[in-house]
């Protein structure tokens, strides 16, 4: 008997429905799976065989052909185990097929008939509503994640037997629900705080501006001056994610398989700090079957690159396009996918290989050509895309022994959130979310300068010989500074502060 079971697949971040068609003829026993299956799908034959017999069912005789439609898209992963097993059992009339039309089934089987979690369940579930699908059967570990989607009943099962008995109407399973607002209201608490960092008032202010406008930052300073400490505390002053942003981030983590069963929704902004030996594919995403890279995993959060010039030059240069566009498109022979990559780049580096260049107390031992080579790793186009260049000098003795508590993350975050609220109101009718992502037409519309500011900017551009992009960046940063100030127009003092964050341009 021909049986059709609905399942799902993902291409990039978009889910779609896959129909698993199972039919058998009498003859020599065997199974074949068609419809561009990959190795994991082909192997499901063996898992299905043992799962069926170990669940107490009779393995149906005859030759089975299993077709995964649409047949022209490659099917990956073990998630078709459960639909195939259910299809075979239904084909041999051990399971009733009444519910199949409105049900989507996902899950990997273990040999004992238990269900294991699979990747990418959230984007798959998001694609289901509107297709006449009423319920989705998922492994228990994936239940929380699936329940984030409204409009479909989530039936969490622990085994093939449980799913079969549910489909036969022998047991009823209550749809799994999750309280999204409760997940959000639970306050994120950090173990680290901005007040831990002594001194560095200038750098703290720069990070506040960066957080308020979503700008990219490069911190330059001697070893031990607190660059890494500052960067790690940046998430504590960022405003919390909105529900839609959180779902976007969670989708990416679901596809990558980084979602734990305990934490189904990512409510904190991601902080990714890949090591400097990471490859360009690791950063940008890719592989034979494309997978999101670090830039996408840092979507809506921070990508922290410590020891910036130590990264391979290729790796640094591939950052240019996502920094500008906020998305990465990966084209491979098999498929082409687009992942979002709206992240804040926070980079940290020493001023020279030994780290003491320009230090007032210690002397640098690097020969000049080495310093030049070190800086040469950072190309002009890349530096142009970094809005804020911040020097983080070594702390003085008095500052180190100072025990006055600094400003806490909590109070900085309040100011940042106010500035972000202004931006959300400003960009309400556009796709843009923060100042750093403004398009040229938005810059023209929203970055209104008063007369003093206008003349200051003009003379700065002339004297410092800045590029067109640097000009644009200064306007965006000064917009953020004005927002922090609560000012409608950009004033001369805002422009002045923005210009001094371009120290590497000035130094040239």
């Amino acid at each position, binding site marked *: 008997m021909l049986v059709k079971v609905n399942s799902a697949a993902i291409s990039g971040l978009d889910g779609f429905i896959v129909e698993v068609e199972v039919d058998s*003829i*009498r*003859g*020599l*026993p*065997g*199974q074949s799976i068609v419809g561009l299956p990959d190795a994991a799908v082909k192997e499901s*034959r063996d898992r299905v*065989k043992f799962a069926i017999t170990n669940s107490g069912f009779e*393995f149906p*005789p*005859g*030759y089975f052909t299993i077709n995964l439609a649409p047949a022209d898209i490659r099917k990956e992963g073990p998630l078709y185990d459960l639909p195939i097993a259910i299809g075979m059992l239904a084909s041999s009339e051990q399971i009733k097929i009444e519910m199949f039309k409105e049900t989507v089934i996902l899950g990997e089987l273990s040999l004992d008939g238990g269900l294991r979690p699979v990747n990418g369940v959230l984007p798959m579930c998001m694609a289901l509503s509107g297709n006449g699908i009423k319920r989705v059967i998922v492994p228990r570990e994936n239940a929380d994640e699936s329940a984030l989607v409204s409009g479909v009943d989530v039936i969490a099962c622990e085994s093939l037997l449980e799913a079969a008995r549910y489909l036969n109407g022998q047991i009823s399973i209550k749809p799994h629900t999750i309280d999204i607002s409760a997940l959000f209201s639970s306050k994120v608490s950090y173990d680290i705080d901005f007040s831990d960092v002594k001194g560095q008032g200038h750098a703290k202010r720069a990070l506040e501006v960066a957080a308020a406008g979503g700008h990219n930052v490069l911190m330059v300073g001697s070893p031990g001056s607190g660059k890494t400490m500052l960067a790690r505390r940046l998430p504590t002053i960022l405003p919390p994610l909105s529900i839609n942003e959180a779902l976007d981030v969670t989708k990416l983590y679901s596809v990558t398989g980084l979602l734990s069963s305990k934490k189904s929704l990512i409510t904190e902004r991601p902080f990714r700090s890949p090591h400097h030996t990471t490859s360009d594919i690791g950063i940008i995403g890719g592989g034979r079957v494309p997978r999101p890279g670090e830039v996408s995993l840092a979507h809506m959060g921070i990508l922290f690159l410590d020891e910036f010039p130590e990264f391979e030059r290729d790796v640094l240069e591939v950052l240019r396009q996502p920094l500008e566009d906020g998305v990465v498109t990966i084209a491979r022979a098999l498929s082409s996918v687009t992942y979002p990559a709206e992240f804040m780049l926070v980079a940290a580096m020493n001023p020279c290989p030994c780290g003491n260049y320009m230090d007032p107390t210690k002397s640098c031992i690097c020969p000049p050509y080495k310093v030049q080579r070190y800086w040469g790793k950072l190309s002009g186009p890349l530096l142009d895309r970094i809005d804020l260049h911040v020097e983080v000098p070594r702390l003085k003795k008095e500052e180190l022994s100072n025990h006055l508590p600094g400003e806490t993350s909590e109070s900085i975050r309040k100011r940042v959130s106010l500035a972000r609220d202004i931006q959300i109101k400003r960009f309400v009718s556009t796709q843009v979310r923060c100042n750093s992502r403004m398009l040229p037409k938005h810059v023209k519309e929203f970055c209104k300068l008063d007369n003093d500011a206008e003349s200051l900017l003009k003379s700065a551009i002339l004297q410092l010989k800045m590029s067109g992009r640097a000009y644009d960046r200064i306007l965006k940063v000064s917009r953020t500074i004005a927002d922090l100030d609560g000012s409608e127009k950009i004033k001369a003092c805002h422009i002045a502060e923005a210009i001094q964050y371009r120290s590497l341009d000035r130094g040239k």
Partner: protein
Amino acid sequence: MLPFLTLPFDKLMISLRTSAGKIIAVYSDMGKESTTLGKEGEAIAVQYLIEHSYQVIDRNYRSQQGEVDIIARDGNFIVFVEVKTYSIGSFGTPLGAVRKAKKESIIHAARTYLLKNNIKDINCRFDVLAIYRSWSGLTSYDLIKDAFHVS
């Protein structure tokens, strides 16, 4: 009289070339023993299958590239049975003894049998029957139904 003429005819002579290049002859009765063991095993197997309500249709069916020990009917199934006979001291398990090449040989024979006899629309099965024999003449059986599939 030459020594080899005194030997029974069904004993095998295996000649081996040593590393030094010298040819030595070894007389072995291994081959005879395993084939007779197999033959006896098949006879016992038929008996066992009949006792378990199989109807034996054919024995030692051969196709061009394959063979199957016993073809039988078990209810609605046509069953192709591979018989493995073990004497005490043998190694391995019956399923392990049916390797890829053997499987392909059985499958080929099965396909040919179904085609030549124009058998359609009947479910088939591959069983492996292991027979363990001890020196004292005790025999035990292990029938593995649906042992493998066409892949």
